């Protein structure tokens, strides 16, 4: 059903065929993405510095040289055997704002991800606290799976002051933040317990990429998605899956990301074969499948997964008359201060939640502006990045305070953490509110 939408710009990596065409193909000497030669990408840069002007890290950190240096400049200065990458690449938060700001299609985040991967691979001491900490943060899913086996104990422990200070001292994970609580029942447990899909359909089928956070921490988001899609008559598949890779890219753990991506691509490509489109409730997860996978990997099916992945609300807006349904519905006292995550912005989705909430009776959403929340996944959890993270977030906190609403809204789980951390507001996901309005 999505063939019609998968056309478009042939230069978009998402639309390239995975099958080798007769055109020239450079010989495969870059089996690992850490070894990719991205110098030709610097051809597109005419140095205008727009990327530097939108970089939230550069705005608050004078020591950070900015995306233009990290990307096209650093790549262009490389000779084949040069191995060293400047360590400032670890200060990039991977918000990817530079990507969407570039007027000339420089593959900035691809350059940053690849350089960061090279840096971690070649230059970071594997026994260092930084490496260990980053590896743990990047592999949140692994620890979340352990922790969620005994959620109450884990929540008790992670909330413990002593444990937090040990985390900071030993691992460099900030003790300023409240560790997210694990749900008593994960989304997947709920899914199994309810007996899987309630609706079967050959025409309308979606495969849900729930990611880690809505599985272990906020299963309510995943449940809302399922109810909402079933309300519209979709058969929902929940294929086995690993982390989307977002925190791994951001920490330069490309080998970990590669393993996770391989599973995800093969599972979701299989779902596509069965006639499903891929939907995600987390905008960083959808970003990863859509853009980072084809930029960094070339498993069979990478391009088709990229081309057929959508953010959940985006998907409903494309295929259903979500607007009309919302206009007919009503909720009580639902005013939100909405923050658009950078990764939603990059997918062109910055405006949709506000638009949808304003249609819904009794609801309204006020956009709190274009600034980045500053947490950028694992970035704001690092003790040495915490202050930078909060400084970036200050503008958003101010705007949230100024907004009339006392509840926040965003699609991204870590933006939600930051919003809650900075204002004390409860933060909702648009899917939760829509499901309440339409289904319950």
């Amino acid at each position, binding site marked *: 059903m999505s063939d019609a939408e998968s056309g478009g710009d042939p230069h978009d990596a998402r639309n390239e065929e995975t099958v080798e065409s007769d055109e*020239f193909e*450079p010989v495969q000497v870059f089996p690992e993405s850490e070894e990719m030669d991205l110098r*030709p990408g610097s*051809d597109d840069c*005419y140095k205008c510095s727009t990327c530097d002007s939108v970089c939230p890290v550069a705005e608050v950190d004078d020591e950070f040289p900015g995306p233009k*240096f990290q990307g096209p*400049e650093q790549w262009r200065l490389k000779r084949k055997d040069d191995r060293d990458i400047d360590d400032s690449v670890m200060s990039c938060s991977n918000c990817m704002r530079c990507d969407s700001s570039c007027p000339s299609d420089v593959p900035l985040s691809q350059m940053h991800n690849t350089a960061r991967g090279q840096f971690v691979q070649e230059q970071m001491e594997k026994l260092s606290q930084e490496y260990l900490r980053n590896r743990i943060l990047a592999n949140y899913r692994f620890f979340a799976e352990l922790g969620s086996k005994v959620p109450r104990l884990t929540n008790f422990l992670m909330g413990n002051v002593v444990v937090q200070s040990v985390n900071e001292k030993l691992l460099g994970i900030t003790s300023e933040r409240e560790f997210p609580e694990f749900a008593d029942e994960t989304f997947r447990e709920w899914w199994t317990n309810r007996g899987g899909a309630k609706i079967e359909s050959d025409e309308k089928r979606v495969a849900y990429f729930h990611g880690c956070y809505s599985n272990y921490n906020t299963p309510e988001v995943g449940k809302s998605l399922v109810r909402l899609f079933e309300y519209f008559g979709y058969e929902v598949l929940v294929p086995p899956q690993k982390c989307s890779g977002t925190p791994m890219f951001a920490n330069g753990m490309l080998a970990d990301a590669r393993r996770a991506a391989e599973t995800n691509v093969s599972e979701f490509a299989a779902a596509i074969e069965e006639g499903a489109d891929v939907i995600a409730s987390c905008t960083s997860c959808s970003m990863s499948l859509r853009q980072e996978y084809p930029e960094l990997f070339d498993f069979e099916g990478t391009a088709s997964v990229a081309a057929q992945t959508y953010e959940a609300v985006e998907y409903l807006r494309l295929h259903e008359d979500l607007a009309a349904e919302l206009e007919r519905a009503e909720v009580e006292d639902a005013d939100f201060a909405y923050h658009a995550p950078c990764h939603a912005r990059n997918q062109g989705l910055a405006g949709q939640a506000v638009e949808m909430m304003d249609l819904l009776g009794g609801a309204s959403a006020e956009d709190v502006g274009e600034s980045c929340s500053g947490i950028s996944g694992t970035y704001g959890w690092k003790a040495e990045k915490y202050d930078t993270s909060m400084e970036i977030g200050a503008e958003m906190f101010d705007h949230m305070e100024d907004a009339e609403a006392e509840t926040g809204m965003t699609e991204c789980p870590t933006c939600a953490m930051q919003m809650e951390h900075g204002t004390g507001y409860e933060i909702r996901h648009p899917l939760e509110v829509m499901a309440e309005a339409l289904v319950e």
Partner: protein
Amino acid sequence: MTDTEVLVVGGGSTGCGVARDLAMRGVDVTLVEKGNLTNGTTGRMHGLLHSGGRYAVSDRASAEECIEENRVLRDIAGHCVEMTGGQFVQLEGDPDEYFEEKLEGCRECGIPAEVLTGEAAREEEPYLTKDVKRAIRVPDGAIDPFRLCVANAASAQQHGARIETHAEVTDVLVDDGGTAESGRRVRGLEVRHTSGPGKREHRQPGETEEITAEHVVNATGAWAGQIGEMAGVDVEVRPSKGAMVVMNCRQVDTVVNRCRPKGDADIVVPHETTAILGTTDVEVEDPEDYPEEQWEVDLMIDELSRLVPILDEARTVRSFWGVRPLYEPPEMGTTDPTDITRDFFLLDHADRDGLADFTSIVGGKFTTYRMMAEKISDHVCDKLGVSAECRTADVPLPGSEDFSVLRDYMDEFGLRSPIGRRSVQRLGSRADDVLDTDGPNPVLCDCEAVTRAEVQDAIDQSGTDLNAVRIRTRASMGNCQGGFCCHRMAAELHPEYDEPQAREALDELFQERWKGERHALWGEQLSQAALNYALHATTMNRDRDPADREDAISFEEFDSGASASKGDESKTSETKEARHGD
């Protein structure tokens, strides 16, 4: 008593090489050059350090000289050389016999040569075409002609030589009373200093100087005929132009040659941050006035895309043309310039034309500049009765004494690693002297990673001549072609030089950059040019800058601003109206 023992004309590789050689033998040398160093052919070549492979079939004597000098230059000029290695690539359809001849030629000339399968060749250079049948790997390299020439001049100066750039020869002074039968000899030159003598300084009045010498060496390459004419002798150089195209970044990290009999557009040389495509071979009348034609650029890209297909899509930043100083004795009468030998000729005008104390050097190639300089110096020393031996093959050039680029730049110089690495690659053993500064050391040229310290060091050497700063540092030679750094470089001239001088120096540099960009105005480089124009013409208002006016600005014509002119209503409203009508 003469002003100097030997007067060398021409600040290219040969001239600077001769000056260094003679100075190291204790001879008092003066070198004059009409532009900056490398102004002629040296600054307009593709930067190939020949292994000799290119001549291994047609000209084995040259091939043997090349491999010998290739090894010498790696030793004495390490900071100018990048040993990239090279490949002679045979595509499907290219003649097998020629490939075999090339291989045999290399082996006979002592050039290490190894056959690579097509697959192996593409593993070394992933962007090579699938049509590679096989390749010969040879020790070609990349060499920076600017740095090499400057280092030779610096070494000559350290040994007491006087180097005068921007000093054009206006006359060759010929006397009666020489030792030749005719009784005529060259006693010196009349030169016109653009500013100075000494370092270039914009807006300083020039002057004419007569410099007398015991011997004059005409090392002006393609211009040798013009100097000869001033002395009344015929030097039949046959200048031949070659076009080169500079790509924005490296598509290859080794020198890639097409393995087939001579032809245009058959080489890609990785050069610093760029790759240079070469070249053509067309005879021209005047080494300074010849057409720069678009077909030459197109030919380069079309032909070489067959070898490296990504070139077809890749961004070019500029094109330039050089003139080879080809020479053959007039009786040879070769018509096709590609058939003229690349060997060099030493013309002793005493024997040849009855004009004593005057030697011209013509033909030759960059890779063997040192060997040529040695032979000329031997000849001159012979004439002067100097018995000192040549030492240029053994003593490293300034910058090439022991150095390593593997350093912790951040700790040592406070530089980010790619910037530190590039700076040390350029400066070699001079890095500590240049980069160890007290004050802040920001990057002035982002594309090429050039810091203030390096620009200041170059200004110390060359005054207000920003093109001389450019060739020493590569500042303004990257993808924005100076759009973002020309003015930063000019600002560094202050306070030692005043504002009008800096402004003139800036204009000169900016114009030189634009000259080469004209041949690359499509795709991304056109976007770049448009952005550069917007920055310079609009943001900096350089096309209508009041400071460029001849007459002074009468500031009294302006009112004192809104707060001061409250009493004068009519004037304020007039200003407003004018603004609306604008």
